[in-house]
């Protein structure tokens, strides 16, 4: 997986993302970083800290508060020959740019038969579990996985965040890179009443200082098991992992990492082995990415299934503030779903 061995050190996910941007800006003068508060200030989550001082304002700059403009301008820069990495401050605020992303970035290569491309990576913090309420918690990945021409990537560890972001920046297709902000500073097992953990000691937090890639389109098997397969990504990978450990169930956990293009071989291989499948995501249920996963598993593993495919997801409501832990697909709900699948 690692294409160049360098010294590793412990990093948080924010530090890993910052390191990926630093590495790519150093390697490729075409890489430019832009967005609200990303320049002098270094980003509201510190993901771009220090980059403007190091690479200058022509390559790292603050933008006006207009998501249409940020993405539209990035497409134009891509047409010129740059490799922009625009940031949308929260995924909840990506909607004004939807026309530019769906109608333009995603279609540009296709409609121009390859004359023009949009080699950009849109970084955006997403997901809940932080008392972000309705507009700082959403998981809109299903909107983008539905759009042909866009790749959607979601890391769950600092190591993957850096390697996947480097791969995304190098990719010549537009990539939506959703960063689970709940785990920027430490993994989260869904036990909201326990003290927050840092990334210290987590094996996924040892990150090479230099250049390496985690290829897009490849899932990671977090834990091998025989009893059932759990498909998840982002924050939910940690919630699932912790719940499985506490239950002592022999689940195979697959962190998808890239939703489009999807690692169908990993999914198919695992479900055919276990015969059972649980899908977990924070996003709302109806037409969420879990529905696509469920359909694929059903189509391709039908004769191996010993129980219906289950989904634990956010409810079909806007993300509530005070009722966050009732909404969040946490350990209680995952445990119940696993028990149900194993009973069937």
């Amino acid at each position, binding site marked *: 997986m690692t294409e160049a061995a360098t010294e590793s050190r412990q990093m948080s996910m924010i530090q890993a993302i910052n390191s990926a941007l630093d590495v790519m800006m150093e390697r490729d003068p075409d890489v*430019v970083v832009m967005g609200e508060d990303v320049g002098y200030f270094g980003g509201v989550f510190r993901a771009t800290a220090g980059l403007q001082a190091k690479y200058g304002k*022509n*390559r790292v700059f603050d*933008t*006006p508060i*207009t998501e*249409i*403009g940020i*993405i*539209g*301008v*990035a*497409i*134009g*820069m*891509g*047409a*010129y*020959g*740059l490799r*922009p990495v625009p940031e949308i401050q929260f995924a909840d605020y990506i909607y*004004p740019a939807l*026309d*530019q992303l769906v*109608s*333009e970035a995603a*279609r*540009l*290569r*296709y*409609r*121009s*038969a*390859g*004359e*023009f*491309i949009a080699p950009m990576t849109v970084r955006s913090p997403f997901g809940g579990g932080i008392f972000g309420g309705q507009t700082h918690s959403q998981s809109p990945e299903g909107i983008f996985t539905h759009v*042909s*021409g866009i*790749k959607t990537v979601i890391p769950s560890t600092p190591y993957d965040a850096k390697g996947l972001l480097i791969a995304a920046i190098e*990719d*010549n*297709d537009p990539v939506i890179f959703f960063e689970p902000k709940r785990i920027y500073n430490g993994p989260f097992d869904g036990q909201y009443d326990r003290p927050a953990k840092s990334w210290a000691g987590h094996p996924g937090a040892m990150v090479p200082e230099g250049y390496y890639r985690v290829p897009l*389109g490849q899932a990671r098997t977090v834990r091998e098991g025989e009893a059932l397969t759990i498909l998840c990504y982002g924050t939910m990978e940690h919630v699932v992992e912790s719940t499985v450990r506490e239950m002592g169930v022999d689940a195979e956990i697959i962190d998808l990492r890239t939703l*489009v*293009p*999807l690692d*169908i071989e990993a999914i198919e291989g695992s479900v055919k082995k276990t015969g059972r499948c649980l899908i977990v995501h924070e996003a709302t249920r109806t037409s969420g990415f879990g529905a696509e996963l469920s359909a694929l598993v059903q189509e391709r593993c039908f004769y191996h299934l010993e129980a219906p495919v289950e989904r634990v997801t956010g409810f079909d409501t806007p993300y509530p503030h005070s009722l966050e832990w009732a909404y969040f697909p946490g350990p209680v709900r995952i445990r119940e779903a696993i028990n149900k699948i194993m009973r069937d």
Partner: protein
Amino acid sequence: MGDRGNSGAGMAGNEQEQRRNLPPLRLHVPEPRFRPGDVADFSDLEIPAAGMMPRPDEGGDPANMHDLAYGLVRVLDAEGKAVGAWDPKLPPETLIRMLRAMALTRAFDQRMFRAQRQGKTSFYMKSTGEEAVSIGAAAALASDDMCFPSYRQQGVLIARGWPIIDMMNQIYSNKGDRLKGRQLPIMYSAREASFFSISGNLATQYPQAVGWAMASAARGDTRIAATWCGEGSTAEGDFHSACIFASVYRAPVILNVVNNQWAISSFSGFAGAEATTFAARAIGYGIAGLRIDGNDALAVYAATRWAADRARANHGPTLIEHFTYRAEGHSTSDDPGAYRSADEGSQWPLGDPIARLKQHCIALGIWDEDRHAAMDKELAEQVRDAAREAEKNGILGHGLHHPMETMFEDVFEQMPWHLKEQQQAMLDEWKAAGL
């Protein structure tokens, strides 16, 4: 508010009582001046005489140019003489080249419109009456300045010498179509001509052009960008986003608004024209704004040249409103007789751009009616011959298109498994059906 609204409990009752004496509020819904059956009369339209507007230095402060955003820069007078400070004093060969490109654009439009009516393609859009907007600008830009057009700047491609047979292949979606039949007719893309891929989504090209210009500036390049949208599209959020980015970063970009009075059936009042000019929008952004006679090829050339020089000297963006008239229907799917007066076009006070440039060339003694008639005949033949050649590559629906499996290419740089599966499934289905 005054006395109303400062009392405590019972305030609502009192307010209601007092409001009974106020006239009812009225919603203003704009209405064009002439509808079908009306006699169009533009005699009260204020058209400043040619040559009246001052021409400030290209490096000037936009704050001192407000008059230019409300006036109308015009070079050609009623007799076809070039007058005033904006006269670009073009050499005869440039004038004739522009005249020829405008005439070729019109001939091309006529032929392709007819091809649609003959069922050879699904759709077409003419630019009749707006040829000067595209060709005047293209003549004033460098050939490698990047253009982000809307769907009505075919004249830019023609002025840049792009082969019309290539454009026809695109319109016919045939096997010679560089876009492989994926795009609606007239949504050209020609990277070699620095002509950006046209999108159906209005105004999206505006911030993209600004981004291209910002990239050029960040790289220390000398190329600039130009973009076009109609006055109707200025209502889109992308227009605002583009203007704010262009202003903030002083991007080397020319923002053209082609005010042809109509957005399909909606007159310009629905884009805000009753309240102000489109060029005046520049003022709020601190951008230089010029309002020009869009049927005057010399005014278009001069304004574009001014804006290009301004951009190249790092003085920032310019917004140019081209005041013109959409002489024909919006598209082959549109009948303007259903919403506007039939004689508006003939009554339009700024005339026909080709006729006016022709008159100018004749007045200069470098052109005459015979040469013009011969040119029109030659261009009609050129277009007819090109159309015949293009039709050999196929017309829409006659099977000479790109192989159907190419539908799956170029969605991504490399085809992922799910598209490969769908591609194979489609081929298998057709084979199983014996087709």
